[in-house]
């Protein structure tokens, strides 16, 4: 009996599910990713601004600065506003941090390494992305503060303007590969990455992605100069840390989705086929592509001012949605006249 239980535990510890839960894309990955990417963002942005960035904590280039900040946030008291709706106030950041991690379950890290293999993987990712904006709205309303309320209202507008082109632009990819299954989409790119066949769609997807993850130039809901800190104004301590965590997980999910749809996902040559398992090589490739995406997003933060909400709406409704539709039509024509381009 003991032996059986032991075998069960050992079997679980060495199984793929355990590795997926605790390593990629599980706890270790999201934890390390946020710690490193926050440090990397501060460091790279500092170099763009001709500064040093974190320098002292952790001996080498301040690499432990994020960890120190997280610890500091953990030990801080969080004070809810007196007239706040407490349940919403406490729960919104918790869910804001945890919901985007679900999007990672749909992303294939190798042909077989996928937490929830499904024929509609892309739709699952979109469903999760569509869920996240509700939480800031709840938070903004629950804080009972004018700044947070305006921040929450802005999120509604921003997400409606950003999500539709995000969905429409991916339609071209689906048509080319003939599947909603992300593994099939990646495999369809074995000849050309879709960014080469769909530059317009990739651009629209990229811009609306920035709007969805609320980064500069579309960090309108948290505009510091107008709204103090938007819907997060009242949060302190680890609740604030969780909102930041959720933001960076959204960033990771967005970059992974972009790499999967347009940059060939996990596809890439394995330098030592006998030596390195093909799963690891695939993971390394998709993580590398994600790192490039994150770098681009960070440099964009250093190169542009923030737009206004009406300008974002103009951009979304008058430019991105028509462009996404044009892209769909162009893809149809492409498939009709050159049927060999698609992977299907």
């Amino acid at each position, binding site marked *: 009996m003991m032996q059986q239980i032991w075998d069960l535990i050992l079997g679980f510890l060495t199984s793929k599910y355990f590795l997926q839960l605790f390593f990629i894309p599980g706890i270790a990955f999201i934890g390390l990713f946020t710690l490193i990417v926050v440090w990397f963002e501060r460091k790279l942005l500092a170099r*763009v601004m001709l500064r*040093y960035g974190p320098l002292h904590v952790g001996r080498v280039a301040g690499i432990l600065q994020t960890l120190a900040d997280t610890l500091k946030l953990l030990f801080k008291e969080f004070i809810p506003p007196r007239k706040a709706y407490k349940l919403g106030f406490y729960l919104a950041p918790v869910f804001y941090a945890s919901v985007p991690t679900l999007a990672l379950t749909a992303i294939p890290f190798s042909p077989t390494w996928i937490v929830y293999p499904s024929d509609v993987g892309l739709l699952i990712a979109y469903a999760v992305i569509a869920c996240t904006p509700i939480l800031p709205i709840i938070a903004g309303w629950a804080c009972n503060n004018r700044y947070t309320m305006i921040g929450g209202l802005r999120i509604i507008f921003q997400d409606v303007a950003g999500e539709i082109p995000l969905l429409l632009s991916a339609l071209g990819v689906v048509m080319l590969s003939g599947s909603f299954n992300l593994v099939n989409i990646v495999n369809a790119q074995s000849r050309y990455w879709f960014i080469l066949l769909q530059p317009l769609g990739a651009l629209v997807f990229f811009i609306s992605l920035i709007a969805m993850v609320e980064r500069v130039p579309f960090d309108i809901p948290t505009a510091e100069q107008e709204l103090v800190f938007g819907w997060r104004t009242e949060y302190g301590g680890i609740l604030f840390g969780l909102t930041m965590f959720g933001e960076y997980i959204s960033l990771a999910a967005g970059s992974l989705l972009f790499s999967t749809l347009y940059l060939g996902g996990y596809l890439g040559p394995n330098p030592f086929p006998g030596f390195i398992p093909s799963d690891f090589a695939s993971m390394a490739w998709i993580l590398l592509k994600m790192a490039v995406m994150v770098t681009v997003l960070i440099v964009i933060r250093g190169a542009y001012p923030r737009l206004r909400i009406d300008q974002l709406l103009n951009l979304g409704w008058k430019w991105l949605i028509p462009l996404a539709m044009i892209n769909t039509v162009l893809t149809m024509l492409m498939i009709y006249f050159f049927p060999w381009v698609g992977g299907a």
Partner: protein
Amino acid sequence: MSTVKNTIRPLVLAFSHVFRRVFTAKYPYEAPSRPSRCRGRIMLRIERCISCGTCEKICPNIAIKMVKLKGSDKLCPQIDFGRCMFCYFCVSYCPAEALIGTELVEISVYSKEKLIYPPEKLAEEPKWPDLLPKPKRVKLRVVGRRGAGHVEIGRE
């Protein structure tokens, strides 16, 4: 067309700055060199002071007060650096050149009272505070294609 240019060019320029020289000086490990006319903490040469009181009258902030030296009747200036704004009118107008300027600006202390320098303390040579590490002296220079930055003196 100019729209595309005006959107892409900032991105390229911002990224190119990653490879430029970092501008920041790592104060207090590196201290930028001070110009020779730097207006730092004021120093008093007691033996040259003629107790005329010009400094007391000229001081716009009433930071200077003439007090008696310890153990003698001679009047010498006492400067409250908490009030002083380092205009150096006292140094400029001192007829005997008893008040002279120094380069030290690191005179912060924890209590206001310690900023009141009686003549004896004013006469001391300025010295770098013990709390801070001994700094490397750097200088702001415009060097080559990597732009301006702080360069260590002697290694320009």
